[in-house]
C-alpha cells in the first residue's frame, strides 16, 4: 500500500497525580469516547487495536487480556506492545501499510499512582547478577549519565534547571497538565540532591491518565477528517542493555531512531524543516541530550540556545509546548502519546493559548526511561 497513514482522532483524560475516583477501565473509556468522537467513527469501524502496557506497571500478569472492553475491541484483533508509545504507533502504521487494515487504534495509559514501590520495580529490571546485587536505587543511572553528559558537552546544571523552569511554566497554559508551576532555576538548583548531579526537581513526577489515538490510511482519513495529520516518518531502536558499555554522553538510540524517521520523511536538515518538537524530558538533562543527539543542536550548544530562548514556546524552535513530562507528568511508556496528542493539536491549529503559529511539521521523540536505552521518533505533518 503506497498511501500515507494519518492520525484522524485523539482522545485524552486530564493528567493527575492520583486518580482514585476512576478505574483504569473507566479512565481509558473516557479517552476512547473522545478519540472516536473526534475521528467521527464508532469502535465497530476499527480494524485493529494496539495497546501499550507493562505487567509490572499494571499490577496484574498478562495485562494485555484486560485491553478490549474499554476500547470497544471485544472479539477484534488486539495486541499489546510492552515498549514505548512511539514503537506502538509504528506498529499501527505498519499494520495499515500492509493493506489489510484501514483504521487502527492506539491506546496508552498510566496508573502510576497505584505502584507503591516504583523503585523496586525499576530495580527488578536491572541485571540480576552484575548490577542488582550492588543495591543502588536505580535513579543512580540518571546521575551517572547526567554527570558524563554535562562534563563532556559543557552544558551545566544551571541549563538543566532552566529546562525545568521552562517546562513547568509552559504547562500553565496546558489544561491537561498535572504539574504546572512558576518556579525559578534557583528552586531547582537548591532542591534535594538525589544522585549527584541530579536533584529532586530535575526529575519528572509521575501522573495518571490515558490517551487514545485513531489512525487511518490516507484515502479513508480524507473522507473522515477535515484535518488529518500525516505520519511522515517513524523510527525506533534500542542500545545494548549493558549499562557499562553504553555511550553515556550521547543518546545514540535517538540518533538512530531519528535517522530512520528523517530518511522516511525526506528530512535532511531537521532544524530548518521541522517547526517544533515534543521531546522526552523525564530528567531535565535528557531534554538537552535528546535535542543534541536528534541533530537539532550541535553537542554542547543546546544549553546556550536554551538560555537565548531558542526552545521557548515563542522561540525559533519550540521544544515541549505541552510542558513535557516535567510539566505534564511522566506516564511510563505512554508519555510519548501525550507528545503525539500535543503535536496533533498544534498541527490542526487547535492548541488555543499555546498555539504556535504557522506550523506544518512536528517531531516527537521518546525515551523508555530507566534503565533502558531505547527510544522512538515520529515525524508528523499537516501538509497535503
Amino acid at each position: 500500500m503506497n498511501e500515507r497513514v494519518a492520525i484522524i482522532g485523539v482522545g485524552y483524560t486530564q493528567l493527575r497525580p492520583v486518580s482514585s475516583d476512576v478505574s483504569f477501565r473507566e479512565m481509558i473509556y473516557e479517552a476512547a469516547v473522545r478519540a472516536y468522537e473526534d475521528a467521527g467513527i464508532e469502535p465497530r469501524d476499527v480494524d485493529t487495536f494496539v495497546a501499550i502496557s507493562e505487567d509490572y506497571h499494571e499490577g496484574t500478569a498478562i495485562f494485555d487480556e484486560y485491553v478490549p472492553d474499554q476500547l470497544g475491541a471485544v472479539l477484534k484483533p488486539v495486541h499489546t506492545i510492552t515498549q514505548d508509545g512511539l514503537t506502538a504507533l509504528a506498529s499501527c502504521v505498519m499494520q495499515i501499510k500492509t493493506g489489510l487494515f484501514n483504521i487502527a487504534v492506539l491506546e496508552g495509559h498510566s496508573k502510576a499512582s497505584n505502584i507503591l514501590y516504583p523503585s523496586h520495580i525499576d530495580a527488578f529490571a536491572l541485571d540480576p547478577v552484575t548490577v542488582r546485587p550492588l543495591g543502588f536505587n536505580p535513579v543512580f543511572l540518571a546521575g551517572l549519565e547526567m554527570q558524563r553528559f554535562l562534563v563532556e558537552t559543557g552544558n551545566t546544571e544551571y541549563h538543566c534547571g532552566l529546562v525545568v523552569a521552562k517546562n513547568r511554566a509552559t504547562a500553565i497554559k496546558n489544561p491537561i497538565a498535572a504539574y504546572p508551576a512558576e518556579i525559578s532555576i534557583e528552586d531547582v538548583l537548591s532542591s534535594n540532591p538525589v544522585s549527584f548531579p541530579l536533584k529532586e526537581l530535575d526529575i519528572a513526577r509521575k501522573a495518571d491518565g490515558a490517551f487514545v489515538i485513531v489512525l487511518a490510511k490516507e484515502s479513508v482519513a480524507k473522507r473522515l477528517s477535515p484535518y488529518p495529520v500525516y505520519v511522515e516518518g517513524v523510527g525506533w531502536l534500542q542500545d545494548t542493555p549493558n549499562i557499562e558499555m553504553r555511550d553515556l554522553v550521547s543518546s545514540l538510540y535517538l540518533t538512530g531512531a531519528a535517522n530512520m524517521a528523517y530518511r522516511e520523511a525526506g528530512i535532511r536538515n531537521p532544524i530548518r524543516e521541522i517547526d517544533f518538537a515534543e521531546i522526552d524530558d523525564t530528567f531535565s538533562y535528557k531534554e538537552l541530550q535528546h535535542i543534541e543527539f536528534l541533530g537539532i543542536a550541535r553537542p554542547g550548544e543546546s544549553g546556550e540556545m536554551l538560555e537565548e530562548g531558542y526552545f521557548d514556546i515563542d522561540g525559533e524552535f519550540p521544544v515541549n509546548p505541552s510542558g513535557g513530562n516535567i510539566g505534564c507528568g511522566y506516564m511510563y511508556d505512554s508519555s510519548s502519546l501525550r507528545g503525539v496528542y500535543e503535536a496533533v493539536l498544534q498541527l490542526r491549529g487547535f492548541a488555543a493559548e499555546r498555539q504556535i503559529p504557522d506550523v506544518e511539521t512536528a517531531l516527537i521523540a521518546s525515551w523508555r526511561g530507566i534503565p533502558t536505552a531505547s527510544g522512538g521518533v515520529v515525524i508528523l505533518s499537516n501538509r497535503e
Partner: protein
Amino acid sequence: MEFKGKSLKDRDFKEKNILYTDWHVKAHYAWDCGVALSKFFEGLKEGKLYGRSCPECGRVVIPPRMFCELCFKPTDKWVLLKDEGRINTFSVSYVNTDASRREKPNVPAVIEIEGASEGMGILHLVAHPEKIEWENLEEVLSMIKIGTKVKAVWKPSNEREGAITDIKYFVPVKEE
C-alpha cells in the same frame, strides 16, 4: 537410565554451589476500583448484589461496569439483583495454587445471577449445603449439575469488608 552431567540436589541451591538468584520484588499495588466496582463492593458489604443496565442493548451486567463493552455506550442504571442464580458451569478441583493436592475437592463455578442477563455471572465457590466440604467427585455430581439453582451464603454483617469473599460460597437449593 544414565544421563551425562551432574544432577542437582536441593542443597546445591541452599549451599550456593550453583549461581542462583532469588529476588523478592516489592510488587505491591493500590487498586482503583472506580465507580462501578466500588458500588459492587459497597453492595457486598450490605449483603446485596448490584448490576448495571445498558440503555442500548438492555443487558443487565454483573459485576457492574460503567459502559457496555458491546454497545460502547455508558450504562445508566443500578439494578439490585437476587443473591441466587444458576450454575453455568463448574469444575471439581483437586489442586491448590501451589500445585499441592487437596484431599477434599473444592468446586469453582460460574453462577448466572437471577435478574441479570443470560450469560452474566460471577465466579465463586459452591459448597455442600449441610457439611460445606465435599467428600469426593461422586458426591458433587450427585448434587449439582449445569443449571442447578444456588443461593449465596454470606459472612455475618460485622465480618463483611466489601470484598468478593463477603459471600462465603453458594449452596444448591431446592427448586420452588
